[in-house]
């Protein structure tokens, strides 16, 4: 089962994501952050735990909203890149935003973002993602490794 990190300021949206993921059996564990800063702090703590040898597993997937107070999605991506997490601990990032601005979609290509998804996230889409991610987890290691070896910022 996947560990998912939802970064989204809207609590209702967080709840509905949770329900949807439960409905399709997408995630085993869900971590929530309400803005980019909370999320960055989560990764800082995580790295600290890893370096101290504690049992801490990084999320497999990040669902990232762009428009958030305190620290928005773009700033999060920038700060997240600066953390330079070890490759094995690097989650797959999906941007899920209400923006349909093509500029945002272009900008997302500058980062190692798996996909730019426009809200709403439908269950069908979630199932498609589940298929993609589980396929990867189960053995297509060579592909996975190649993906992972890509520099985070293109």
């Amino acid at each position, binding site marked *: 089962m996947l560990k998912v990190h939802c970064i989204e300021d809207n609590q209702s949206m967080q709840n509905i994501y949770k329900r*949807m993921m439960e409905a399709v059996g997408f995630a085993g564990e869900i971590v929530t952050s309400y803005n980019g800063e909370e999320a960055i702090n989560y990764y800082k703590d995580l790295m600290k735990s890893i370096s101290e040898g504690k049992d801490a597993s990084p999320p497999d997937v990040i669902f990232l909203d762009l428009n958030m107070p305190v620290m928005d999605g773009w700033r999060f991506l920038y700060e997240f890149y600066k953390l330079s997490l070890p490759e094995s601990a690097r989650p797959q990032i999906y941007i899920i935003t209400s923006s*349909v601005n093509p500029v945002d979609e272009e900008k997302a290509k500058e980062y190692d973002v798996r996909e730019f998804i426009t*809200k709403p996230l439908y269950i069908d889409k979630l199932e498609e993602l589940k298929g993609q991610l589980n396929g990867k987890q189960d053995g297509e290691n060579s592909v996975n490794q190649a993906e992972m070896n890509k520099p985070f910022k293109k």
Partner: protein
Amino acid sequence: MDKIKAVIQNSPWVIALIYLIIGIVWIAFSDQFVLTLWDDADSLTEVQSYKGFFFVAASSFLVFLLVRKSNSILGGVIEDLQVANNKFKATIEHAPVGIAHHKPDEKWIEVNQTLCDLLGYSRDELMKCEFSDFVHPDDLQKGRQLDSELIRGDIKNYEIEKRYIRKDGTQFEGMVRKSAVYNGKNVPLYLVVVLEDITKQKMNEKTIKKSLQEKEVLLAEVHHRVRNNLALISAFLDLESRNVKNKQVERVLGKNKVRIKCLSLIHDAFSDNNAGGIYFDKLLHQLIDFFQSFYSTKLPAIKIEKNISPVQLNINLAIPASLLFTELVINSAPNKFEDDSQPVLNVFLGEESGRITFRIFDNWTQPEQSELQNKKTFPSDIIQALVAQVKGKLETGVEQGKSMYSLRFNNIQKKGPGSSIN
């Protein structure tokens, strides 16, 4: 003034001429007259002396009269000049802006009271001040550069905003305007300075800017929330439809998800709406992209052939027109295909002399199966209401053996309720 000047210039000649003529006439005729009365030498000498005295006395009296007149004129002119000069000085002195003259080497020639008050110095103190004493150090250089351009004659005048420091150390924002005065040989004599305290304007400007920014943020926030809430409703419907066993209900819920997404896209188009209206063609492309991804999970990928020309619509037309397009697509989108043929949806949008034609047809709906042909069903009601809203005409027909819908309506730019932005 010109008349006085002319009289002053010409009168000496006229007076001298008259005096010359009278003198000659006097000498010529008075001697002959005297000779007719006296003939002895002693009497003649005596009379000639009296005649001379009389002439000198008469001349003196004339000179006295002329000088008195001239002086009274001059006195009046000088008085007028003094009044004008005082008025001018008072105007400069009490002007609501600081005024000064300074030499090209930045030495003051004169400063007015307002400038002294603005900078907080007495006149004597200010006359001794250097520019660096009251101009903010960061603004000193740009002012000097413009001054040298003025002195060189590269520019005729300039105005810039600079920060000034009063004697007590407090600061204010000033607008300074300068021009140069040259002599006949184009050598700069002095620079005219006008300084105004614009702190209040600057503060107002900042307040307006801040208020505008707040409104922009608020507006963006409202748009963001509307989009998020529409996405949320869509997600609710999505989650709900998973527990629905009835195919008909599931289809209705599915249609509503699409309708909500369509409204969300219209809302986006509206939020980057310009004065001219909504780019309907751009909106249509987004809708089509959405349909393609939405149906791709259930059906073989629908190939969409587009022939879309740029069309700008008033928001009052853009909303029903895009909802109509959505209705036409969701009502003809099949649940499944019987054969393996490639589903193709053909969309045409064009505008000719203010009349918009909008046509779609697919290669899977048999005309007799079309829900839309049945005028009693619910979607048909929606469609008819939307067609009425755009005051258009919807024709259903058959093209290449499949059902075709063609909508025509006038692109009216007229303002209406809800379109106050346009």
